């Protein structure tokens, strides 16, 4: 195997320093994504800094929200009583992802930073601007069933695969980051970026920055929520399209709404305009259809993913229907 250094950190500061010392060092949490990529030769870090022992796995109640440590396990978050009561949408999204075994290893930080599943990214013999800048995008004119319909560029049409992140972007979460130059807070919607001319960069994190936690503000979305994931088998598959929907209902009137999509863009895709189209309207099929149409404005398909132009709005309607009925 490729030689690399392995160190285990017990404090965040030490972890950050250990990563900063070496070019091309990587944090490793559950390893469920990073190790696969290393085995395929897609990522070849010189050093792994194991962060599993950092004291960052708590799920805590704050004055006006929840704080979830970056090393909390996906399964622990999904099963947590506070999360289920206050942010059930997050629990639903987590449980829609991967498998029981993987969720028992995967962490919150690792989940949001997992890399695309684009087949061209994974095969080192194929062109991919994300993996090897300048080699071209294999998917653009290749097999692109799973690919983006929003926010892509001619350099990259890959999608972000995380389910959890779709809920987090809908819930206005904030990412807590610590780096060599101290702490900062990043709105979740600004964590991931669009590919533009630099698809090799998935996020707006600086190299060496450690995610320490994610905060989710309290909100009215404790009941009428749903995560609708459409996939090619009943479980254990990435989304063709997924939708996180949260409604604040007064009687049958929509007072507030949150809506985001997965499987459609290089980042979890918040649907702000569609949310606007829902607010103040009755929670009916017609309202949902209208909002779905707004959501899809600007969508563009490639050779094999035109179905998403129809599946997208349908999934939004289904998610809203289910959320309203919950």
């Amino acid at each position, binding site marked *: 195997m490729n030689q690399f250094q392995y160190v285990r950190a017990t404090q965040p500061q030490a972890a950050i320093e250990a990563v900063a010392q070496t070019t091309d060092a990587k944090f490793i949490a559950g390893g469920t994504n990073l190790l696969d990529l290393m085995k395929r030769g897609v990522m070849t870090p010189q050093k792994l800094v194991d962060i599993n022992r950092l004291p960052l796995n708590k799920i805590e109640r704050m004055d006006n929200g929840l704080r979830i440590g970056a090393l909390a396990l996906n399964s622990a978050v999904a099963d947590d009583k506070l999360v289920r009561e206050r942010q059930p949408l997050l629990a639903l999204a987590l449980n829609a992802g991967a498998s029981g075994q993987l969720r028992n290893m995967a962490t919150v930080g690792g989940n949001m930073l997992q890399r695309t*599943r684009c*087949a061209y990214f*994974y095969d080192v013999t194929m062109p991919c601007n994300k993996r090897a800048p300048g080699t071209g995008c294999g998917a653009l004119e290749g097999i692109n069933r799973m690919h983006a319909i929003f926010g892509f560029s001619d350099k990259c049409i890959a999608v972000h695969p995380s389910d959890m992140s779709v809920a987090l972007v809908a819930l206005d979460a904030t990412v807590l980051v610590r780096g060599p130059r101290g702490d900062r807070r990043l709105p979740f919607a600004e964590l991931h970026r669009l590919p533009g001319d630099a698809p090799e960069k998935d996020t707006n994190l600086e190299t060496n920055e450690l995610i320490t936690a994610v905060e989710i503000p309290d909100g009215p979305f404790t009941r009428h929520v749903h995560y609708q994931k459409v996939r*090619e*088998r009943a479980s254990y598959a990435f989304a063709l399209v997924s939708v996180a929907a949260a409604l604040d209902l007064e009687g049958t009137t929509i007072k507030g709404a949150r809506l985001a999509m997965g499987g459609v863009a290089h980042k979890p895709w918040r649907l702000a305009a569609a949310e606007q189209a829902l607010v103040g309207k009755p929670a009916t099929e017609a309202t949902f259809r209208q909002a779905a149409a707004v959501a899809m404005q600007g969508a563009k398909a490639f050779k094999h993913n035109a*179905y998403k132009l129809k599946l997208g709005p349908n999934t939004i309607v*289904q998610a809203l229907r289910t959320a309203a009925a919950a």
Partner: protein
Amino acid sequence: MKTQDKQIGAALSRVDGHQKVTGAATYSAEYPLPGLAYAVLVGSTIAKGRLTGLDTRAAERAPGVLAVITHLNSPKVPGFDTAGKDPSQPATVGGPLKVFHDDKIRFNDQPIAVVVADTFERARYAARLVQAQYAPEKHQTNLEASAPQAFLPTQARKNPKSPMADYQRGTADAYQTGALKVEGEYVIPTEVHHPMELQAITAHWEAPDRLTLYDKTQGTLATRRDFAREWNLPEANVKVIATFVGGAFGNALHSWPHESAAIIAARVVNRPVKLVLTREQMFTMVGYRPYTWQKIGMSATADGKITAITHESLGQTSTYEEFTESTLAQTRMMYAAPNLTTRYRLAALDVGSPIWMRGPGEATGAFALESAMDEMAYLLNLDPLEFRLRNYTDQDPEKNRPWSTKFLKECYKLGADRIGWSKRQLKPGSLRDGEWLIGYGMGVGTFGAHRGGAHASAQLRPDGTVLLQCATTDIGPGTGTAMTQIAADALGLPPAKITFELGHSDYPQAGTQGGSSTVNSVGPAVQEACYALKDKLRTLAGASQPAFAAAKKEDVQLADGYLTLAGAPATRVPYKDLLKQAGDAAVVVEAKPGNEGQQYSMYSFSVHFAEVRVHELTGEVRVSKLVSCADAGTIINQKTAANQMKGGAVGGIGMALMEHAVIDDRYGRYVTKDFADYHVPVHADAPAVEVLFVNQPDYHVNALGTKGIGEIATIGVAPAIANAVFNATGKRVRELPITPDKLV
């Protein structure tokens, strides 16, 4: 002695179940031979062309590396010069890839080097360091694009009676002039073999001319033949051991490049070498169900009698081997169509060779045929079951001779009752449960009840237990268990006193485990070996006790410690006396079919009924009920037989709803390379499959009355689901799999 209950038909638990679930079972990659070295294959990254340069220096210098073997330095494999002329493999023309034989690239990921090291990790690391340069040539991996070059298989060209030849009864393409007709094109994508156990081999040259292979194979003798030939050795010098096989569905019915590579590697490093393919390499190196295009035209009278069918098929094969399968067989014999035309063609692509995959061509063909049957039933406004009954045949319309047995009507009835077929509405989209549209569909399957000759030995041991041996393999159906039951009845011994050993080429000869033929073939050999053993013991006992000589065979009983006679417990001879007299009291018998196959058409039959739910908005399909009913002759073991049916049905769900291996034709390379991209059903995709057997013996096949289960378990499942999807949605999906994108 109390006569024991009959074992045949009982639900005996697997005799090797404990070994399997405790990890005591040894698979091909689990023989820790002294000095074992590890081999990793390097694959080409182009689909066609020539290797112009290979830089192996870095790999050779890497720690622990024992050898890097390529076409530039591979030892000469004597059989490669004479290969491809194998008359005993009628299904293929050409031959397996001759690994490291020349600089030609014939498919993407073709092995171009094997790295051997003292550990697996070191071999894998060094394999990454091998650098190749190519002179690429224009490749073709797309079947539709190759349609203009489609050809008739060689065997059909040579022999117009070949099952691959064009077939005609009545008027050619008569459906075209029919008043009521349906016509459709169907596509089955490439489906890839992914049993739980990866393909693995441990190759050991015990002497320069003696080779032992611990190999994942469905046929120890076929593998022995292939590699004896490859190395120009007498077969007796090659030993093939496959005591346990962790699932194989056709992928181990053939010899593959990784096996040749491991043998070459073991020869070069002069140590035993283990080679296990990666999951990724399973896509490219061990065959697959070939991508197949089909067209069906069918006409019928208004009262539901089929007047004509034309069924055409175009399947892919590789450029170096001609693989054929019986895609059109079911169409020729299933329904009483007076005018029938079939045409089978191949296109040679720059891909690895395909191979049979469970239910093989018949399952591919049944998708088209049984979909067309459904479509025609709608056109006629008839219940699809009633339509099939109106075209039921009481004799084989292809060969014009009687069926050996056929209880398909009984299957229809049993299955329809169980699924609640009467709930089905003729009009699509009539039933729903909230957002889920509900539909019912059926599909029929058939497969030849094949039987070949087989040998088995039976030996009495001093403790009164009996050891049976046969070179057959067990890829999972429970062969040892069924054979134990057959022997138990034949000997009158409890199963615990019988040991059945298999998976070794030194054992008495038997065919490959494939084509649902093992119980049909080996079962009678085991039964007759047991009878012969009893008879031998009786003769031996007769020497000291004349009562045995005069006794009827059925009256001879194997009691604890001695041979005795029914109704005369005092007449007894201790086993140790018999063994003293006879040495080892072993018998080897051969059981062969007679000419029944010329007098009767022998087939197993199945019908599958599916209830599906299709989401009206997302197009997701869930199979909510699946009833599989089989006319498979005598059921030897209710439990393992039902298990076969369930596994086959789940395979059918995969075929219908999710399995598709996709090649990017620009590179001739798969983009689905792992289980995240290539989906097989998970538990949540499979309902509790309900299995029903008619359980009527067919004594024309053999004295046990068995007909075979493995293939009919899958054949017909995919169209049952596709037809149910139509019943739910009114959408006829003719290109599998039926993924949500095709229904929204």
